[in-house]
Every structure is written in C-alpha cells, then in structure tokens.
C-alpha cells in the first residue's frame, strides 16, 4: 500500500472515518467514568461477600435471635427495589440523619453511600447463594467435624463454608455480574459512574444509538471476562465427592 510521507494519519481514509463517527466522544472522560464503575463494583463485591457470609452464618446458626434477624433482613432487603435503597442512603441516611460516612466532599459522600446501599442490597443475594451452598455440604461433614471436638465457629469456617463456597462460585458469579450492572443505579444520587456520563452524553449529543452501544460494550467488557474467569475458577476448585 502506498503511504504519502508525513500524512500517514490524514491520508488514511479509515482513520478519517473513525474520527468523524466517534467525534461525539471527544471531551468526555469515558475511561474515568468506567473506572468509578469498577471501583463501585469491587468495593461493593468485597463488602457484600463479607456481610452476606455473616448473614448466612446467622441463618444456619444455633441462636434463634440471629436466625430471625438473618431471615428478616434477607426477606425485607431483597424485595425492595435497589433504586429505593440507594435513594434512602442519600435522602434518609445523609440528608435526614446527617450520616456522611467520614467524608466531607459531596462526591465522596455519595460514592460511599452508594457502596453502602449496594452492599446492603447485594449481600441478601450473596447470603442466599451461600446458604444454598451450605445445603450442598453433606450433614456428615459437619457431624464428623463436631465429633472431633471443633466448635460451631470452627465447623463453619474450617469445614462447611470452604466447601460451600466452592460449590457456589457459579451463582456468586451471577450475583457479581448483576452487581456490576446494578452500580448504574448509583447515578440516581449523582455518583459520576458510567451511567451518569451516558445520560449526560445522550442529552448533549445526537448519536443516541451509538452512545448506548458504546456503554453497552463497556459493560460487556467488564462482565464477560468476569464470567469466563470465574467459570474456570469454579471448575478448578470444585470439591470431588
């Protein structure tokens, strides 16, 4: 192919076309917005894994009060729309009760509130996935563990939960993918993540379909590898019986 010297870029008709088609992206921090989405996802994932595991432990535990709390929490929280929960963290916790989660700047407060809301919501689903996993562990495993003198907590943390986690990597992957997409609800309280930027671009630019496609593609880029990698992990750690 013939390339005129010094005009490699200008002379390439493909590059020129790309420039015109993706013109609307100029001036927007697309990567920055998706980075906020990633941060929301990771922090909420870790938080809801911890809180969800604790809830599952409560639901299978011997203390009736804790069992009752776990059951009530899951049944209430998973039946409330996420938008309502996220709005409540802002309107209820922050503006009415004055909780700012240790932050002073408006953006940071909202980011933290969104993480809190996402954890509260997602952990109900994590809890149920783990509880299903606990049910796949044969009763004999816990009995044998009790028989050698392990305490309830040891039976749970050394024997039952490690096996339960290995059997629910698949369901937990679903929860993680749902969580990644659910972070878009944080736009409702002004967290500058991908969906908020999309809304802004849709208002200012003309290429509505193309903008939607770009953001859809962005989310697929986040969730597709998650699913593939965790699918492989799930197979690798599965307990053979």
């Amino acid at each position, binding site marked *: 192919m013939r390339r005129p010297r010094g005009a490699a870029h200008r002379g390439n008709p493909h590059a020129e076309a790309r420039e015109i088609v993706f013109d609307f992206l100029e001036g927007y921090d697309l990567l920055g917005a998706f980075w906020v989405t990633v941060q929301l996802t990771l922090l909420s994932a870790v938080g809801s894994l911890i809180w969800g595991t604790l809830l599952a432990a409560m639901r299978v535990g011997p203390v009736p009060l804790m069992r009752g709390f776990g059951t009530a929490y899951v049944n209430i929280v998973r039946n409330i729309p996420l938008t309502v929960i996220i709005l409540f963290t802002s309107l209820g916790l922050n503006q009415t009760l004055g909780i700012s989660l240790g932050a002073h700047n408006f953006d940071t407060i909202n980011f933290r509130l969104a993480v809190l809301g996402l954890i509260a919501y997602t952990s109900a689903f994590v809890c149920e996935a783990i509880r299903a996993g606990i049910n796949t562990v044969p009763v004999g495993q816990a009995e044998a*563990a009790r028989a050698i*003198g392990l305490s309830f907590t040891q039976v749970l943390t050394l024997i039952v939960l*490690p096996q339960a986690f290995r059997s629910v990597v698949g369901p937990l992957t679903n929860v993680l993918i749902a969580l990644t997409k659910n972070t878009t609800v944080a736009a409702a309280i002004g967290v500058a993540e991908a969906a908020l930027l999309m809304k802004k671009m849709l208002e200012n630019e003309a290429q509505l379909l193309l903008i939607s496609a770009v953001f859809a593609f962005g989310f697929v880029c986040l969730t597709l590898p998650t699913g593939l990698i965790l699918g492989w992990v799930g197979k690798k750690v599965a*307990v053979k019986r």
Partner: protein
Amino acid sequence: MTEVSVAKDSVAATDDLVVLSSVNKHFGALHVLQDIDLTIARGEVVVVIGPSGSGKSTLCRTINRLEAIDSGTILIDGKPLPDEGRELARLRADVGMVFQSFNLFAHKTVLENVMLGQVKVRRTDKHKAEEKARGLLDRVGVGTQADKYPAQLSGGQQQRVAIARALAMDPKVMLFDEPTSALDPEMINEVLEVMQQLARDGMTMVVVTHEMGFARSAANRVVFMADGRIVEEATPDQFFSNPRSDRAKDFLSKILHH
C-alpha cells in the same frame, strides 16, 4: 440374683468409662430409645447388634451427643455429658467416632484430615501433628495415600483414614457406627483387621455392626437391641450359642442360616 447385682456393683466401682442410665429418646412419635441402661468399662469392647430401626445407631450417637436425649443421664469418665458449647466440644475430642459413610473432609487431603483435630482442637504443633498423623496412617496401612484427597481412595481406605483421624485425638473411647455397612465385601476385612488390632491394644470400643464374625472374635460383650430396648446382654459365646430371649433367637436364625 443377689450375686449378680453385687458383681455388677463391684465392676461399677472399679473403672466405668461410659454409663448410660434410664436414657429415653423420641423422634416425634417414635420412642427410639426406651429406658436404656448400659455400662461400659475401661478397655472393654462392646458390640451392639440388632435389626434395623432398633435404635442401635441412635444409642451410639447419643454417647457424644450427636443426638440429644430426652431424659436420663450419660456419664463419661465420671462426668455428665455437657450441653452444647465449649464443654461439649472438649468432651467430643475425647470420644472418637467412626461413621458408616466415612465423612472424611472432602476438601482436605488425607494427611490434613488426620492433622486438623490435633492442630485446631488440641493446639498441637504442626510438625508434631504431621509426624503423628503419618505414624497413624502407616498403622492403619494407608501411609502412601497421605497426600491424596478422600475421593481418590477406595471405601476401605477412606474408612481406615477415618479411624486414624479419630485416633489422632487420643480418645478415651471409640464409637463405631456401622463402620463396614457402606463397604464393598472385599474391603470389609481390611477395616475389621484394624479394629481387631485396636481391640487387642486395649482401646475401649462401642461397635454397632452387622459383622457377627467381628462380634464373636473381638467383643467382650454383645448387646442385643430391638424396638428401642436392650433385650439381651451376654458374652459373645453365650449369645451366639445360647440366646435367652425369643427376639434374639429369631434374629440370629434369620442372619445365620443361609
């Protein structure tokens, strides 16, 4: 009559390890254990036999409180069986248990299975625990399988690992809940041989089983249960050659003549 009771008392005074008195247990409407009185002396091997549903497995499981009882008392080494909690866990560490379905921890290697209780309950140093675990695995004849996972072993090998896991806690008494019932016929003997050896070494054992050969050769005493009651207690010779109760005669005629 008087002589017998005097003899019993003198045994009780010497060295009773497990004492059950008037133990009752219900599963819903089913009265699975009815006024059970049973005393097991230190070093004694007691084999519990009986038809299925007679409550023999339940009896075995009440001794380390895997099944809670409704009334009565169970003493282990002179101390009553504690309720749930730390005390109970401590007691269970002293009572070894071997299950029908092996119940080896599926996500841990054979070696880790035998080390876990020592490290987490007895707080033994890891190196010492491993040394002991390897020694016990050699003793039950599965030393070469130490780094495999339970699912990679045959049933007989798994059950021998389970025995090693229980022995690693230095139990005062070992409970065997139908240890050979889930095994293929050719693997039963390798497990029974380990149990025979344990009996010869003086381990106190309560064995629920259908292996009459083992009962004959290793037991000091046979306890025959039916419908939630202890119907007969006798030495193996007495029991197998001359059972007193009709229920036991009926049971033996069904299992021994074909």
